């Protein structure tokens, strides 16, 4: 689709300067002829500044030119992008344009362009030239514009401690094809990555992971146990009723509160799926077991649900 390769660098630099840069170019105030104007409220934040926003039509023309340049132009744009934490960070413009292109190709009539953009971004996640901060930014842009075509590539980075969270959030946003990647990722995941992936399996309601999640209810890490209970509640599988009730009964404090919630969410999912007997099993148990004064509200919630007042 690419016919003419635009000068991506020159296009990027057409974006307007920040407020501080613009103000510094204004003529000095009459009573302070030696000092450029500066926004006073930002003084405590060093040289950092706010972007002023280009003309929408002019910006869209730039995005369109870059997309028309095809994969090579997108690669060139990625090559210009830097995170403020990178030593060679110059300005906000390349990252801003890259995000603008992500939105431009996301318009519903542009799916071919969107796929090309997403696949090009994903292809750079293994590049040794880009910093982790820039890769994180690319993954966040895939959260914006990526589709199932990049799910597998994203899944390869689930074991990266610095990128795992961003990858998972992108997979959740993409949804299609996320479950299989998350399941694979769970196999080798430890620590915070494991919690992150377990939680995501619940968000995408991956029924095939129910067995692994039930086993995670007895993990030594309470964050893992809570995430597993939450995920099982959200998935809404009848086979989790006994395990979740047990988890809610045994846990104390915050974990007990969260596991009880997981039971109630599971019951709601089961009711919505027409599995009233399974749902009522949970409600009846909570009604009969939450007898302490401090648990009255849980008992009442169960009673209300059993009375059909949902």
């Amino acid at each position, binding site marked *: 689709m690419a016919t003419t390769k635009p000068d991506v660098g020159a296009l990027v630099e057409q974006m307007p300067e*920040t407020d501080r840069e613009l103000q510094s170019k204004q003529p000095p105030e009459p009573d302070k002829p030696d000092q450029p104007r500066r926004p006073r409220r*930002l003084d*405590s*934040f*060093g*040289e*950092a*500044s*706010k*972007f*002023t*926003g*280009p*003309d*929408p039509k002019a*910006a*869209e023309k730039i995005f369109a030119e870059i997309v028309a340049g095809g994969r090579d132009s997108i690669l060139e744009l990625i090559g210009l992008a830097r995170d*403020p*934490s990178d030593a060679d*960070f110059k*300005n*906000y413009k390349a990252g*801003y344009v890259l*995000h*603008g292109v992500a*939105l431009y190709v*996301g*318009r*519903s009539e542009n799916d071919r362009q969107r796929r090309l953009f997403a696949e090009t971004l994903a292809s750079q996640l293994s590049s040794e030239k880009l910093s982790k901060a820039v890769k994180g*930014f690319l993954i*966040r842009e895939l*959260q*914006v*514009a990526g589709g199932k075509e990049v799910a597998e590539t994203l899944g390869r980075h689930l074991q990266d401690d610095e990128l795992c*969270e961003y990858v*998972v*959030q992108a997979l959740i*946003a993409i949804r299609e094809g996320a479950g299989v990647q998350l399941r694979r990722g769970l196999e080798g995941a430890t620590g*915070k990555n494991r*919690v*992150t992936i377990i*939680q*995501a399996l*619940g*968000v995408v309601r991956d029924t095939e992971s129910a067995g692994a999640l039930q086993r995670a209810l007895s993990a030594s890490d309470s*964050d893992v146990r809570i*995430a597993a209970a939450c995920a099982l509640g959200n998935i809404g599988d009848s086979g989790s009723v006994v395990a979740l009730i047990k988890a809610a009964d045994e846990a104390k*404090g*915050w974990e007990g*509160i969260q596991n009880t*919630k997981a039971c109630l969410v599971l019951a*709601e999912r089961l009711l919505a799926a027409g599995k009233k007997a399974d749902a009522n099993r949970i409600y009846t148990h909570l009604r009969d077991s939450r007898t302490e*004064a401090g*648990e*009255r*509200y*849980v008992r*009442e*919630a169960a009673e*209300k649900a059993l009375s059909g007042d949902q």
Partner: protein
Amino acid sequence: MRTNPRPVTRRSFLKGSLGAVGAFTIVPRHVLGGAGFTPPSESVGGALIGVGGRGPGTFNEMRELNPVKLAQCDVKWLDRADNKTLYTDFRRVLERKDIDVVAIGTPPHWHALISIAAMEAGKDVLSEKPMTRFIAEGRAVAEAEKRYGRIFQVGTFGRFGASRDRNHILTRKIMKSGLLKNCPAVHLHRGGFKVKEWSGLVNAKPQPVPKNLDWDLYVGPSPMKPYHPHRFGGTHRGYWDYEGGGLGDMGQHFLDPFTWIYGKDDTAPVEIEPHAPPAHHDACGMWGWVELKYADGLTLVLESGEWGERYNRKQSRGVTLNDLSEEDRRKVSEMPDPEPLRTFAEAVRTRKPAGGNAEAAHRTASLMHLANIAIRVGRRIRFDPVREVIVGDEEANRLVNQPMRAPWHL
């Protein structure tokens, strides 16, 4: 900052109580728990989570209940938290059985999660505005309120004053009557959004995290980004990760009366169109205006007055009885006035929804979120108010329900 429409100072509360019953009465805890509840004490246990900025003011909005502040929590207290009265982790506060009511004064990316967690722990909640950071959070708060039978009130009260104004009551009746088939009203709110003031920085280099700050807990459900002081302490409003710019900051104040007056506490606009430059991925920035249309024709226009051309599509106008036929006017005049809105304290005592309950506050917050989504994607979007999804625009729809960083979840 607007305050409770029925301000009851401690002095006036005491005076009123004395006048009514001849003796000072603290609201007994069993009143909160309902009949048959044996109170461990005669006081209402309160907690404040997020003590900076509006935190103390938000706690003070519960003063009619005379709460005893048993716990305060803030992520910037790593150097002073004792886990007895001062905390950094709100989970430890919510585990306490002696706390009945919770005021939330954190930045908005925590409002929904702490509200939900507090209700899951059996507490009633008064949360500072804006209620939420994105639309699905509001639905989750409303579900939690219903699931646990708890009281929720958002910390803005403009609708209370509006609900006592005869003209506004008439407008609400006309709208609620269903007799107006094609609503000609255009509500235009111009200015006051502090758009530039609450914009983010686009070239801020990371800085070391202050020793007293739990940055991981501050970031919470939002994407992890390196620390910079502009992302914290008020100026956080300038970042999509934590709020939604000036629109997020001021929108719930401005629109809280609107949703009540026009009877839109249970629905949302169906078409939203922005006039704004392409948005930055991290920092909230400039916008000119956003036009939001409801299915019945009602138009809401938010105009910043800080960027671009002025809105000139429609003139501002309300609805009057003249918009109805003679017969329909008679029907409206026979309608009863709406029920008075309950304050947070009245709601806690009666166990009936507060005036700014979760569903109503969610629908008000959704207006800002929809406007911000349109600004962020830079194009007209269509919304389904029943399913609460954006139709035909996957990128925009991804902003309705944003993934959260584990272990935080709705």
